[in-house]
C-alpha cells in the first residue's frame, strides 16, 4: 500500500551566525506513515520536529533526500490540496475575521462558496468559535487563534493533517476539543501526523510514535509494542533521549 507520508534519507543543515557555522537540524531521516494512521512525532525542544514538518509542507527544502505526500513530491503545489497544516503558535491576519480566514482556506483549495459556508458552519461549531466567527482575529486570545488555525487546516477536508503542537496554548477544554477532532479524523480514515510535548495526549490518540533527538530519528514503533506492562511513554521518551546523550527539555 502506498504510504501517505514518505520521508527518504532527509538531511537538513542551517547556517548560523556571522561565520555561517553549520548546524545539523535533521540527519538522514527515514519515515513512512500509512493511510488512516495517527502518528505522534516526539522529541525535545530543537530536536528537528518542526523542521521535519516544515519540509513536509515545503516551507523548507531538504539538502538531501526526498519528501513525498501521497506519492507526490511536496514541491508539487497541487499536493497541498490534500494536506491540512496547523503551524505551532499560528499567527493570522489581524484585520480578517475567522470567517474570512476560512473563506480564504476554502477558495485556495478550490471549494465552492456553498461548500465553504457549510464546512465553516460545521467547523466553527466543532472548535467552539461559533460566536466569534465574525470578529477580527486581532481580538482573539492565543487559544482562540489555535482553534481558528485548526478549523483553517481542516476546511478542505484534507486526507493528511499535519499538526505542529496542536494542543499548545489551549486550556483543558480546548485540548479535549482538539483530541475529539483528531479521533474523529482517525475514525474517518484520515492520516494525522502531529508533534506534541504532551505525552498523555500522544498515548491517547496515536497508533505509532517516532522519537527524534538532535536531528536523528531514534525510534519508530507502535504504541502497543512500547507500552507493555507498566511502561509509560514518558519512560520510553526519557530513555531514548538519554541514550542519544541529548539534553532533556520537557
Amino acid at each position, binding site marked *: 500500500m502506498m504510504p501517505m507520508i514518505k520521508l527518504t534519507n532527509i538531511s537538513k543543515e542551517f547556517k548560523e551566525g556571522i561565520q555561517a557555522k553549520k548546524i545539523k537540524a535533521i540527519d538522514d531521516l527515514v519515515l513512512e506513515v500509512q493511510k488512516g494512521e495517527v502518528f505522534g512525532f516526539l522529541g525535545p525542544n530543537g530536536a528537528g520536529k518542526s523542521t521535519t514538518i516544515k519540509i513536509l*509542507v515545503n516551507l*523548507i527544502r531538504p539538502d538531501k533526500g526526498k519528501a513525498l505526500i501521497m506519492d507526490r513530491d511536496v514541491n508539487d503545489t497541487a499536493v*497541498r490540496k490534500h494536506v491540512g497544516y496547523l503551524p505551532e503558535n499560528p499567527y*493570522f491576519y489581524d484585520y480578517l475575521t475567522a470567517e*474570512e480566514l476560512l473563506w*480564504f482556506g476554502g477558495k485556495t*483549495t478550490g471549494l465552492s462558496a456553498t461548500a465553504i459556508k457549510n464546512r465553516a458552519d460545521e467547523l466553527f461549531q466543532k472548535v467552539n468559535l461559533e460566536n466569534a466567527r465574525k470578529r477580527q482575529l486581532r481580538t482573539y486570545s492565543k487559544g482562540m487563534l489555535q482553534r481558528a488555525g485548526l478549523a483553517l487546516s481542516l476546511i478542505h477536508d484534507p486526507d493528511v493533517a499535519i499538526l505542529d503542537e496542536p494542543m499548545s496554548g489551549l486550556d483543558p477544554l480546548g485540548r479535549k476539543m482538539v483530541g475529539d477532532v483528531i479521533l474523529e479524523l482517525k475514525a474517518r480514515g484520515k492520516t494525522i501526523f502531529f508533534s506534541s510535548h504532551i505525552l498523555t495526549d500522544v498515548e491517547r490518540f496515536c497508533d505509532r510514535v517516532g522519537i527524534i533527538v538532535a536531528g536523528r530519528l531514534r525510534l519508530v514503533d507502535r504504541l502497543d509494542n512500547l507500552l507493555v506492562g507498566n511502561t509509560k511513554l514518558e519512560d520510553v521518551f526519557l530513555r531514548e533521549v538519554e541514550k542519544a546523550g541529548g539534553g532533556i527539555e520537557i
Partner: protein
Amino acid sequence: MNTLWPVALITFKEGIRNRALYGITLLALLFFIANFLISGMFMQEVGKVAIDIALSAVSLSGLLLVLFVGINLMAKDLDKKTIYMVLSRPISRSQYILGKFLGMALLIITTMVFLSVCAALSIQLIKMVYPNYFPRFSWPMILLALSFNTLSMILLSALAFFFASFTSTSFITLVLTVIVYIIGQSLSDVKALVDAPQTVGIHVSAATVKLVQLAYYLFPNLSVFNLKIQAAHSLFLPASYILWTVTYGLIYTALAITGAAIIFRLREFP
C-alpha cells in the same frame, strides 16, 4: 487566477482595515481643508498654489501608504510567520507574490481614487471662491497628474516587494524603499547637472559621471511621474510623453515583481 484572487482580496482587506490608513487619509483631508486657508493667503497665483497643495497632499499620502501600510502587508507575513498559513495552501511562491502585489495595487488605487476626489473637491471649491485666479485651468491635466502619481506609487510598492523578497526585516525593506524613492526623485536633476556642469560652474570627475549614468539606468526615474508643475500651470504635454511614461512605469513594475518572485522561489521559511 483561482489562487491569485483570494490572496489579493485578503491583502486588500487587511490593508483597507488597517488603522494607519485612516490616519494617513485624515492627514490628507486636513491638508485639503488647510488648502483653503493657505491659498487664500496668496494675493496672486491662488489657482496654482491650490492645485500644487492638493496634488502634494495626495502625493504625500500615497508615499505614506506605501511605506507604512504596503511594506507591512508583505513584511509582516515574514516577521510574524503568517506566510506559513498562506504557503501551506496550494499556492506557489510566485502566485503568492503576484496575489499580494495585486491586493496592494488595488489598495493603492482605491485610496488614491478617494483622495483624488477629495483633492478635486478642494480645488473646485477654491476655484468657486476665487474664480479670477484660475485663468488657465485644465481638469484633464490634474487627472493625469493624479493618475501618474498613482502609477508611481504602484511602482514604488513593487520595489518594496522586491526588497522584501530578500531582506529579513520590514525595517530594512523600509530603509531601502525610502533610499530608492529619494534617488528616484532626484536622479534627473543630478544627471542634468553632471551632463552640463559648466552651466553652474563646477567640475565633475569622469568617475562621478559614470556613476550617475549607471544609477540613472539602474534606479527608477520617479520624477517623470511628477506632473504637479504641468497641472498647476496647465502646460501642454505631448501624447508620446504620456505613452512613454506609462510604458516605463508598467515595465519597471513588472520587472520588480518578476525579480521578487524569482528570489522568493529560492527562499526558505525556517
